[in-house]
């Protein structure tokens, strides 16, 4: 076997005490299309980003053509011949395609002449080499996402990349665009280049890849040629996580329908979503990144309302045009991205805790300190939030405690319907169990809970019923008794996107 292009040994990475990758060894050979598979949060994307210099590993060594390399930035990765193509390519929207191809290349000083004709011809030549029809003179923002990806690939090849990493490239593409992409991938393989393909679409992986590596809980579980593994094997390997010692310790009596959603649709995000959520019931929503689960939640909560379909609260049709309406109707939404949509980072923990209940802490618009402190200390004790003082900026708390604070903020609004979007993401194991208890007791108190989660054990152990979404569609509605990780994953994986 000739020498591997890239060999990674003992790669580990942790973000502020939460280990995301532990001791991963992997060899990648020239002229190979290698798929990285795994659940959300299994670590495959972090590993790829380490190779591309976006993150630095906490431990471990990377060898390129048998010599140790230190990939400390995307620039250095580019020099080493490693290119990362994001799902939505980072480009200069106002500049022409030809310029985006060549921008920032080494070697030309600030005052060197830009030869437009040569640049444009060079770009045209690259496009035809890729077999793609793109007008290289129009600005990038004039291109479709697929075309922008093609430009990114062309740029990688132009900088003579030996290893091209594609992160979820086919998600936004039409079937025709996917087959064009695969044609190019095959040609690059014949040229001896190595391609890493991160995807959930097993059929696509099976069609294009030579070997596949499966990640689970930050560890590399298996690396086999694609033919050695059936779909079932792959799914089993992906999800063989222990169900964990957490067993449901509660059983709420399911009441009448609190929320019913009928044929909800938003162009480009999701369509034909229909489900009911009863008081005291926990309904899980599984699916992969980009399935549109967050968009459904944002539609129900009024952040980006749906264009089609109806929402009923306690059998009464309602119109939710902004979050304030939703809160009045007793809906609460714990957002997926804490830092952007959740915390007021520089404000105190107390201010964050009472952000959603203005009326309660300021009955006549004047904030009553005594009310505010009582509300905040109540949630600090109930949810045992670890902090130095209620006045310290919330940004100083750990991820888990920040999430508790956001949840506490919403519990104060005494919601009837509670939407949790990846509540336990980025939280260490210990705190997760606390969260599960909280969610359980909330259901027991008669609240209806919609739990969006990518962790299958979480869904299985907590939920009464599990919906699964894939590419904006509802693909399954399984009660918890019959549900298994395989069933969920099968429903979550997008159907065959392209013809044979």
């Amino acid at each position, binding site marked *: 076997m000739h020498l591997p292009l890239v060999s990674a040994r003992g790669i580990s990475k942790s973000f502020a005490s939460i280990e995301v990758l532990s001791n991963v060894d992997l060899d990648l050979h020239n002229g190979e299309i290698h798929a990285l598979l795994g659940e959300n949060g299994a670590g495959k994307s972090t590993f790829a980003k380490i190779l591309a210099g976006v993150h630095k590993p906490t431990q471990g060594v990377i060898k390129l053509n048998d010599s140790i390399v230190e990939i400390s930035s*995307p*620039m250095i990765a*580019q020099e080493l011949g490693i290119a990362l193509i994001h*799902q*939505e390519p*980072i*480009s*200069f*929207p*106002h*500049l*022409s395609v*030809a*310029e985006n191809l060549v*921008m*920032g*290349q*080494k070697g*030309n*000083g*600030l*005052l*060197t*002449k*830009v030869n*437009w*004709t040569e640049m*444009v011809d060079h770009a045209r030549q690259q496009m035809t080499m890729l077999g793609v029809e793109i007008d290289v*003179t*129009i*600005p990038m*923002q*004039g*291109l*479709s*996402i697929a075309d922008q990806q093609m430009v990114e690939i062309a740029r990688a090849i132009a900088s003579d990349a030996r290893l091209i990493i594609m992160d979820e490239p086919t*998600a*936004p593409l039409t079937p025709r665009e996917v087959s064009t992409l695969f044609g190019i991938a095959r040609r690059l393989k014949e040229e001896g280049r190595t391609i890493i393909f991160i995807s959930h679409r097993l059929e696509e992986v099976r069609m294009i890849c030579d070997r596949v590596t499966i990640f689970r809980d930050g560890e590399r579980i298996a690396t086999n040629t694609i033919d050695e593994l059936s779909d079932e094997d792959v799914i089993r390997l992906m999800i063989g996580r222990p169900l964990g010692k957490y067993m449901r310790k509660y059983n709420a009596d399911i009441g009448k329908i609190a929320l019913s959603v009928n044929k909800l649709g938003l162009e*480009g*995000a999701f369509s034909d979503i229909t489900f009911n959520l009863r008081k005291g019931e926990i309904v899980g929503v599984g699916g992969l*990144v*980009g399935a*549109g689960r967050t*968009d459904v939640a944002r539609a129900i909560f009024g952040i980006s309302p749906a264009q089609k379909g109806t929402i009923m609260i306690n059998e009464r049709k309602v119109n939710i045009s902004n979050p304030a309406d939703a809160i009045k109707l007793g809906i609460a939404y714990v957002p997926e991205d804490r830092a952007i949509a959740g915390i007021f980072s520089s404000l105190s923990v107390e201010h964050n805790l009472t952000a959603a209940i203005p009326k309660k802490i300021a009955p006549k618009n004047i904030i009553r300190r005594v009310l505010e402190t009582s509300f905040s200390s109540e949630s600090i004790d109930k949810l045992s939030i670890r902090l130095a003082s209620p006045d310290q900026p919330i940004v100083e708390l750990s991820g888990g405690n920040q999430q508790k604070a956001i949840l506490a903020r919403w519990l104060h609004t005494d919601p009837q319907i509670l939407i949790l979007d990846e509540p336990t993401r980025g939280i260490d194991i210990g705190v997760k169990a606390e969260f599960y208890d909280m969610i359980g007791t909330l259901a027991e108190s008669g609240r209806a809970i919609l739990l969006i989660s990518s962790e299958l054990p979480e869904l299985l152990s907590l939920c009464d019923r599990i919906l699964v979404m894939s590419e*904006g569609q509802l693909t399954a509605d399984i009660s918890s008794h019959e549900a298994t990780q395989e069933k969920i994953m099968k429903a979550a994986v997008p159907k065959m996107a392209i013809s044979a």
Partner: protein
Amino acid sequence: MKPILKFLSGREAGIFVMIILFCTAVGIYKPHFISSNSLRIILLLVPLIMIGAMAQMLVLVARHVDLSMGSMLGFSAMVAGLMYRDMPEIWWPIGFLVAVGTGAVLGLFNGLLVTIFNLPSIIVTLGTLNLYRGLTFIISDARQINRANIPSELKAMSQTSPIFGIPWIILMSFAIALLTFYLVRYTQLGRQIYAIGSNPNAAPLRGINVTKVTLIVFIISGALSGLAGIMYASRWGFVNPSNTGMGFEFQVIAAVVIGGVSINGGVGTVLGTFLGVILLGCVAAALPLLGIPGTTQSAIYGSVILIALLIDRSVRQRATANTKRSRA
């Protein structure tokens, strides 16, 4: 080869049409507005704003704003004026080097504050607008450089002309416009300024030295303000600490925004800016003829900026609307 920024050319054509319409309308009302003499008056209003507009365009494209140009102009002109007054026998073209050099230093100071302390350029330059004006008073001991001290050869540059009646300083300002066109279109620096303005976060990832390029943009802004300063001395024949360059930055921003340069960075052409300056020149020259008191000029500038902002927004919306929205 089709012009690369074809999608923008709609904007330049729009401004050109506005100039033609405006001049014909005024011409019908006051026939001698379309005479070679009044063309000369319009052109004489243009040189300083043209140079300032080219510099401000680069600053805006890089997603910054430079409000201190008027004071940089005043300070540089004063330094050159003091040199002429205290060293009368000096070779007069040295004034150009001194003014441009002084301006560059002031621009560098702006750039350092913006890059090293990571401060918003609009607030920094609001501060230096007054700091440099105060320094202009201090170095001149609040006294004016009289017409007698300004070398007659320098003053002649705004009256005599090498070719078919166009004075030197106007040709110089057109030369600066051409130079800026070359810089913007045919040098790496020019393209990187656009790249920084278009997507500041991606620029470092693509190997662009954002700090260095931003510094250069502010140095150019200072240097061109300095050049405008020495041209001020040539055009008006004196340098006064309190009104040399006063309000220059607002005139320049009006011209640049009319010329289609977007405030959000990454968008702007030399041709658009050039036409924006010419349009403002026509308006300024037409006002006295139409009997509209000079007092309305600033109201017109203000409304023109607001209208240009709205046009720019609708252009930007149309541009981003056609990229297919994809869900993460």
